[in-house]
């Protein structure tokens, strides 16, 4: 025997934003689960932004403090960064606090899903400790050098210089495997300039590292002993190119790259553009090219098809003649459908000038129904035709016959009476 389901008190679900009396069963409903997943995804993106500043602390300017705010959905609290010197500092402290952890646990218990995703919505103490150390180091350095930006914030225009200073120092002191682990999950900082000054770097490290530079592989970072000498302003690029004409032709000729050994078809132009050349397997001498004035390949390909295209067009036009102007399919059972189709074909043929008799028969009349009380409309037409014939015949006869004497109308009764009177 089925127990009647107990109706619990009406409560408000924060996720679905509706009142329900389903009690604890509500969190298992698919609609609630859908809403929950979007709800949590939104918060995950917010906390991802906060984690970014956790790993890359940046100074928060006073005018930006009011804009830097986060709403915590678990604690129902708006975290505003008023009075904080680093971006998202209050948010980081909040997400690491025990109160927030308690609220997250309560939320997950009440609304589902399982508790294993609890770490997605909080920040660990270890991360906070690292962040604090970074903030201390930031605070110790010269404020004017890092005013408005730090690391990969991108607000400074001299990002290349700063990165060169910071990253090159790190590279000097730290071996390559450690760099890999340090930057394994994050976006790689710009280890080198991607402008003409890249050539200066490549020359020092040797030709063998060129491919690695182009592929931006962290494991092949060069250990430059004197990186500062190759910073922008040295004007080093062109000279280095000229001295290596064997490997990197600077005349801009992009053909015949088969002689290259170290780099597979890529080289740098004097302007600093890194381009990749293609092998000349399909040489242009046999067919000609745009410079030699050869016809374009698409016209050559279509020469054989042009006649077919013309034939197809004529077929298409005849097909389209059936439906000029309107592409949508009309009801074949509509009134006068057959007549309409025939007429469309006639019109199309007239347009093409196929010499159809354009003159309409003088006696043509539409399919009609005059006023009639019974029978079909065709009968009414037959009646009209009869009347027409009668009209024609009497007219022809009356010309020959004597003129008709017009007499006043005498009713039938009067006529009968006169006959009776006459008889009687």
């Amino acid at each position, binding site marked *: 025997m089925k127990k009647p389901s107990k109706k619990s008190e009406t409560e408000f679900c924060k996720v679905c934003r509706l009142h329900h009396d389903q009690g604890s069963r509500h969190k298992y409903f698919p609609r609630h689960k859908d809403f929950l997943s979007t709800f949590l995804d939104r918060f995950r993106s917010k906390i991802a932004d906060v984690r970014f500043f956790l790993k890359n602390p940046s100074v928060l300017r006073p005018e930006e403090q009011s804009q830097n705010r986060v709403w915590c959905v678990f604690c129902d609290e708006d975290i505003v960064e008023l009075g904080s010197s680093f971006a998202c500092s209050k948010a980081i402290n909040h997400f690491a606090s025990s109160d927030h952890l308690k609220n997250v646990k309560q939320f997950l218990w009440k609304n589902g899903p399982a508790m294993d995703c609890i770490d997605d919505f909080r920040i660990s103490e270890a991360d906070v400790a690292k962040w604090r150390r970074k903030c201390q180091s930031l605070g110790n350095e010269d404020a004017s050098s890092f005013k408005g930006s730090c690391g990969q914030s991108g607000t400074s225009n001299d990002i290349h210089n700063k990165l060169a200073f910071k990253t090159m120092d790190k590279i000097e002191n730290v071996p390559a495997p450690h760099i890999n682990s340090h930057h394994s999950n994050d976006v790689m900082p710009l280890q080198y300039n991607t402008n003409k000054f890249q050539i200066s770097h490549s020359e020092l490290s040797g030709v063998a590292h060129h491919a690695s530079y182009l592929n931006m592989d962290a494991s092949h970072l060069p250990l430059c002993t004197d990186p500062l000498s190759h910073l922008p302003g040295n004007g080093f690029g062109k000279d280095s190119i000229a001295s290596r004409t064997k490997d990197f032709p600077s005349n801009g000729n992009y053909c015949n790259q088969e002689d290259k050994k170290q780099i597979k078809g890529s080289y740098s132009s004097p302007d600093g553009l890194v381009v990749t050349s293609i092998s000349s397997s399909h040489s242009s001498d046999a067919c000609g090219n745009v410079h030699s004035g050869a016809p374009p390949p698409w016209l050559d390909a279509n020469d054989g098809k042009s006649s077919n295209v013309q034939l197809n067009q004529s077929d298409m036009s005849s097909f389209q003649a059936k439906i000029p102007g309107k592409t949508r399919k009309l009801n074949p059972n509509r009134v006068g459908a057959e007549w309409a189709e025939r007429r469309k074909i006639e019109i199309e043929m007239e347009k093409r000038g196929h010499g159809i008799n354009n003159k*309409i028969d003088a006696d043509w009349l539409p399919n009609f129904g005059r006023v009639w009380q019974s029978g079909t409309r065709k009968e009414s037409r037959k009646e009209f035709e009869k009347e027409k014939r009668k009209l024609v015949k009497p007219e022809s006869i009356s010309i020959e016959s004597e003129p008709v004497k017009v007499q006043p109308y005498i009713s039938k009764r009067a006529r009968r009476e006169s006959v009776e009177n006459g008889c009687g």
Partner: protein
Amino acid sequence: MSSYLLKTLTKKEEIDRIIRDTIDEVLVLRFGRCTDAVCLHHDDILAKSATDVSKFAKIALVDVDSEDVQVYVKYFDITLFPSTIFFFNAHHMKLDSGTADHTKWVGAFHIKQDFIDVVEEIYRGAMKGKMIVQCPVPPERIPKYQLLYKDV
């Protein structure tokens, strides 16, 4: 003024041509005189509605005083003016408005919307294969008249 906006036909050839060239659209032919007051009122409503129904209907005026047109006047048993006759693909469409004559609309429409409704109803019926449709105009706005059928 409506004659500037709507085409006036005076010959049988013109009427034949317009009937034959109107394909998959309702053709509205008004038989009347441009000097008659009721016809003028009717023509004004037709002219104003012409653009609204242009996608599925065409409107033309026929001058009943023209000699060429008399065969059509007799053909359609037109005795009262203005009379409006509807065609679809050269087929005469009937309109059951509760009056004695279902083959035409006798008199003027009261408002523009009535005319548009009638044309729309005819178009819908014709597209479904119906040759007679029910008039959507309420009875109070349908002109009343006495029909002489076969001179009776």
